[in-house]
């Protein structure tokens, strides 16, 4: 059976070109970039080239890029780094209620350590209202963090508007751009952000590498102490093959982004339209237009998400759900609850995220298979009867 991978927001396969670019840095140019001899300096040069390329992707300067172990580290670094470096100035942080756990859990950690956090609500599409941000600012606010696009339902937030408000108030502004960098245009000056997180494995690069953009002049404490790597902001011998792979992935993204976004938007809308036509009592989660080109998120009434995911897997289709029957909390996705879904609807959510190797036939296959799965599960659902 052909495997149809539709979970590109979870991770992407590493592009073969990326793997090829990485290989020489495991055995040939394996040197430590801090070493003075040539095979160390080769590695150092390679890292610098990637720094320039990542900076170019987001309209930044190369010295404003710090490589990290991924998106989660970049988020932790931005939030804790700014909070602890500016605690004399204030103790208040503003974020949204639909952030990735890397931001939410870091905020909760800071809340337990004398910082206070405002979690802004979102509307039914998952949009943060910039006026809410304005109203939440106090003279103690030191940082605002709102994600560029939501990883679950794909809604793209009004970052530039929030950025203007933050800048006007002289408050640092961070955005988690893990789902957008390399997929839609991201420019740190247009968005008016001071800090921005990126992850390589969401754009066909390897896992275990990412970056944090830090605008020149931003006060933040180092993430790790040790050697002098990354201008002393993030000690540790650099992940050279990973960074090189990240660079190649960014290069490919730059070449293909606009065409690929258009292709995926078409497939995304085909899938949304087809699902809404073929399955009754189903709703689209997230904004219909202000959404990532590759994200489809629906709630199917009367059925639970994991049982749909397992049935899809039996048909070779990989998708995900906001039902957290398998998490220790058993709570459904905080994102779907934040847009006002009932617990049943949040548990009945299904996310398909499309990517480079998604074809029109793949979409057709989902549209053929899912209605049958839903019918089978609804036949055993105790919820359907009470709604009849």
């Amino acid at each position, binding site marked *: 059976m052909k495997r149809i991978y539709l979970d590109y927001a979870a991770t992407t396969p590493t592009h073969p070109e990326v793997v090829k670019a990485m290989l020489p840095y495991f055995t040939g140019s394996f040197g430590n970039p801090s070493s003075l001899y040539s095979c160390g300096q080769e590695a150092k040069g390679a890292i610098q080239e990637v720094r320039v390329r990542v900076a170019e992707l987001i309209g930044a300067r190369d010295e404003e890029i710090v490589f990290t172990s991924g998106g989660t580290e970049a988020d932790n670094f931005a939030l804790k780094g700014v909070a602890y470096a500016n605690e004399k100035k204030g103790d208040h942080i503003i974020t949204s209620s639909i952030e990735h756990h890397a931001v939410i859990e870091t905020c909760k950690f800071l809340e337990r350590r004398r910082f206070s956090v405002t979690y802004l609500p979102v509307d039914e599409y998952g949009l943060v209202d910039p006026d809410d941000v304005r109203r939440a600012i106090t003279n103690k606010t030191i940082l605002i963090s709102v994600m560029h696009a939501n990883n679950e339902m794909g809604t793209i937030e009004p970052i530039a508007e929030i950025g203007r408000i933050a800048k006007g108030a002289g408050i640092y502004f961070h955005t988690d751009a893990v789902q957008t960098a390399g997929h839609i245009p991201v420019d740190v000056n247009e968005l008016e952000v001071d800090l921005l997180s990126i992850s390589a494995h969401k754009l066909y690069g390897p896992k275990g590498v990412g970056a944090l953009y830090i605008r020149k002049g931003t006060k933040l404490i180092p993430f790790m102490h040790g050697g002098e790597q990354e201008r002393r902001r993030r000690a540790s011998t650099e992940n050279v093959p990973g960074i090189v792979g990240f660079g190649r992935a960014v290069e490919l993204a730059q070449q293909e982004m606009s065409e690929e976004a258009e292709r995926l938007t078409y497939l995304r809308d085909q899938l949304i339209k087809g699902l809404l036509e073929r399955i009754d009592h189903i709703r689209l989660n997230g904004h219909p237009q202000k959404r990532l080109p590759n994200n489809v998120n629906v709630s199917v009434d009367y059925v639970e998400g994991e049982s749909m995911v*397992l049935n899809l897997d039996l048909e070779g289709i990989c998708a995900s759900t906001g039902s957290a029957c398998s998490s220790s909390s058993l709570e459904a996705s905080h994102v779907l609850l934040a847009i006002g879904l009932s617990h049943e609807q949040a548990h009945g959510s299904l996310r398909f995220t499309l990517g480079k190797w998604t074809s029109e036939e793949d979409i057709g296959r989902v549209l053929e298979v899912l209605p049958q799965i839903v019918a089978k599960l609804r036949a055993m659902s105790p919820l359907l009867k009470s709604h009849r």
Partner: protein
Amino acid sequence: MRNVWSLYSDKVMEHFKNPRNVGEIENPDGVGHVGNPVCGDIMELYIKVNNGTIADAKFKTFGCGAAIATSSMVTEMVKGKSIGEALEISNRAVAEALDGLPSIKMHCSVLAEEALKSAIDDYLTKNRRGKNNVSL
């Protein structure tokens, strides 16, 4: 046998793919309704009792793979048992009959046990009100 690369045992998957005893029983002797939407699992279990023996059992479940498989398994296990024997079926027994469940899914087997107990409770309550004469 447990496939180490999958979340569930083959037996769980077999019951998930082909669940036994799906549906409702008309005029059941007992109905159990457990779970809640917050945790994402809701089970309904129906029993038919003849002379103190569970002659038939059916279920309807909203929930994950483990919830469906444990519902299916518990209805299989309970058929032909006396009320007394049925009350002794534990969540562990259900999980073991499925060749185990991941630890984060053990709550599903608890739900299956509770659904069964609740259906039997319902049966006993109805009968106490009625015949006053129930043999365990």
